[in-house]
């Protein structure tokens, strides 16, 4: 099971010294004729040598990373992987996905099994500082909430005093809920089950009075309920949960590529560039747009990529609004604070300048 997997990953961490060094040498040999700057970035070298980006995703969270009926990964987080692949390899489809549980995700990244973790991961101090990771960008602002049965007449978190609450291990939900209940002098009994499907079923079966998770995920859970109308997501948010892709901190160039791939899709929305209009943008006179599509300034080369990296992200994956409309909006989730700053949200990213 998952534990076995963790064991293997732990062993891999130990063994990574020998194999990692060899792999680096091998890939350096393959890409030797390229610019000298590439040797500074083992991750990009590895991605190019392999021909695909290894991306860690969830085992199935609707709207963020989930297999569709045709066996294709879809979602807001999946689009981050696809954007990176479009920027680095020229094709958004060149991604190999590894589904990971909350418990496995960081070890998979640390042991080098994946290049980037794009999986509803809350950025926290401890993860940023202690795990040797870096969170280059934030692609979704969420918060911990609760779903309850309407019949239970629970209106607010206060009403959950003494309740049994289902949750998943390894999520920030566990300490967040414990803190909130302690602060407000409330008690609860946790039921902790690792797999999302099983913990959701336990809640549906009535084992728990409430299920606590990030609110976007709760909306997806509610949509999957036997009768969604019987459940309600409480309006209160008990903690902040900004999500972002994570990478290892030891490769500065790779961090920049991931960061600007996310920023590119948000900037594209701000500039009014979408997958439908991006072709026309090549002839634009707007200096911001010209820099974006790579007609001037050569920002791509500074990243170790070609001039059209951002153009390809928008052309193949679309801008942030398109990703949202395609994956998250159908779940009935409001864009809320995840609007652009111009529209009253908090999405405010540095410009390509």
């Amino acid at each position: 099971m998952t534990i076995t997997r963790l064991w293997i990953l732990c062993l891999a961490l130990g063994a990574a010294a020998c194999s990692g060094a060899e792999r680096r040498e091998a890939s350096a040999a393959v890409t030797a004729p390229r610019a000298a700057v590439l040797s500074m970035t083992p991750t990009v070298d590895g991605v190019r040598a392999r021909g695909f980006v290894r991306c860690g995703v969830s085992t199935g969270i609707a709207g963020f990373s989930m297999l569709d009926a045709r066996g294709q990964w879809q979602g807001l987080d999946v689009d981050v992987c696809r954007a990176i692949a479009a920027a680095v390899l020229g094709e958004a489809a060149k991604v190999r996905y590894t589904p990971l549980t909350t418990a496995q995700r960081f070890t998979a990244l640390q042991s080098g099994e994946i290049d980037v973790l794009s999986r509803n991961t809350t950025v926290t101090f401890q993860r940023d500082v202690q795990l040797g990771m870096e969170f280059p960008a934030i692609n979704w602002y969420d918060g911990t909430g609760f779903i309850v049965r309407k019949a239970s007449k629970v209106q607010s978190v206060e009403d959950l005093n003494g309740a049994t609450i289902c949750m998943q291990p390894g999520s920030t939900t566990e300490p967040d809920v414990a803190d909130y209940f302690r602060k407000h002098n409330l008690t609860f009994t946790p039921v902790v089950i690792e797999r999302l499907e099983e913990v959701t079923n336990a809640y549906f079966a009535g084992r728990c009075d409430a299920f606590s998770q990030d609110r976007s995920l709760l909306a997806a859970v509610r949509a999957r309920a036997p009768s969604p109308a019987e459940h309600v997501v409480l309006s209160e948010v008990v903690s902040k949960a900004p999500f972002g892709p994570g990478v290892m901190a030891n490769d500065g160039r790779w961090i920049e590529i991931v960061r600007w791939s996310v920023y590119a899709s948000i900037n594209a929305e701000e500039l009014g560039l979408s997958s439908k209009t991006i072709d026309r943008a090549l002839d634009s006179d707007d200096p911001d747009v010209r820099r974006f599509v790579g007609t001037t300034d050569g920002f791509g080369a500074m990243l170790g990529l070609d001039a059209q990296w951002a153009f390809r992200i928008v052309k193949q994956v679309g801008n942030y609004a398109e990703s949202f409309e395609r994956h998250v909006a159908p779940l009935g989730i409001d864009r809320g604070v995840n609007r652009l700053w111009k529209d009253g949200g908090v999405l405010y990213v540095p410009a390509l300048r």
Partner: protein
Amino acid sequence: MIRTIRWQLAVASVVVAIAAAIAAQTAVNLRARGIASGFDFLSRPAGFEIARGLLSFSSRDTYTRALLVGLVNTVRVSLLGIVIATSLGLLVGIARLSEIWIVSTVARTYVEVTRNTPLLLQLLFWYTLTQGLPAAPEALNPLPGVYLCFRGLFLPAPIWRHGFPWIGLERPALVGFGFQGGTSVSPEFAALVIGLSIYTAAFIGETVRGGIMAVGRGQAEAAVAVGLSRLHALRFVVLPQALRVVIPPATNQFLNLFKNSSLAVAIGYPDLMSITNTTLNQTGQAIEAIALAMVVYLAVSLSLAAGMSLYNGSVLRRGGGA
């Protein structure tokens, strides 16, 4: 003789050297990747809650205490499981050899079905079954103060009182979301104990059957011939001799049960593995957390094995050198 010792020393030092090299290299890798290491986290507050068990716990307690709570929960499930599995296994083993067709067939079917399906599946089955019980307001109430619903089994518990007669009985009562007061058995705990006991009892049953068959047929026949009833023959002649054959393989089954209890993670019982899992995730220190769990499981397993070996020794002495 000296040559064998030399060889053994050589092999041992190679093994130790490899282990040390792996450990050193891991430490170097962790540092190079900026991943925190060490056991400092053990004295930090855990920050998460654990369902009520034998030991009290709150989110302000340390990771050490959280892991201790997990260990106590694991040991509690294992001990209860071992007792039930042994009793059930003994019955099954005897039933397998019964001359009554229906008894031996039922026992055989039970053994074949449980032995040949995965334990994880069985645990999920028992857990799902507990969830089929009625909801708290419609709880079954077979005896006064005893309630059974899908949130668990709620029983009256003795409590100390100030006045005469000092001991009182606290009955569970339906308050808010569920029953409060008295004592309770959670469905996760029940499913785990039932699942582990029934699964392991099948193996122990086979061990017992083997043990009985290892005792010569003549022994039972002679006992009956001197006037003992069949039950007495089994109780005083066959089983004591079978015990010697049964103990070593039964010890194996006890150890299996103890280790299998880590499957609790799948049904949400807060055992050692489940708490380790959460600790690992909250701290991100996978190697330390897993190593710690490994050491604890190993220590408990070895103690259990040592205890059984002592018992086996005393049984052998008592039984003479047959």
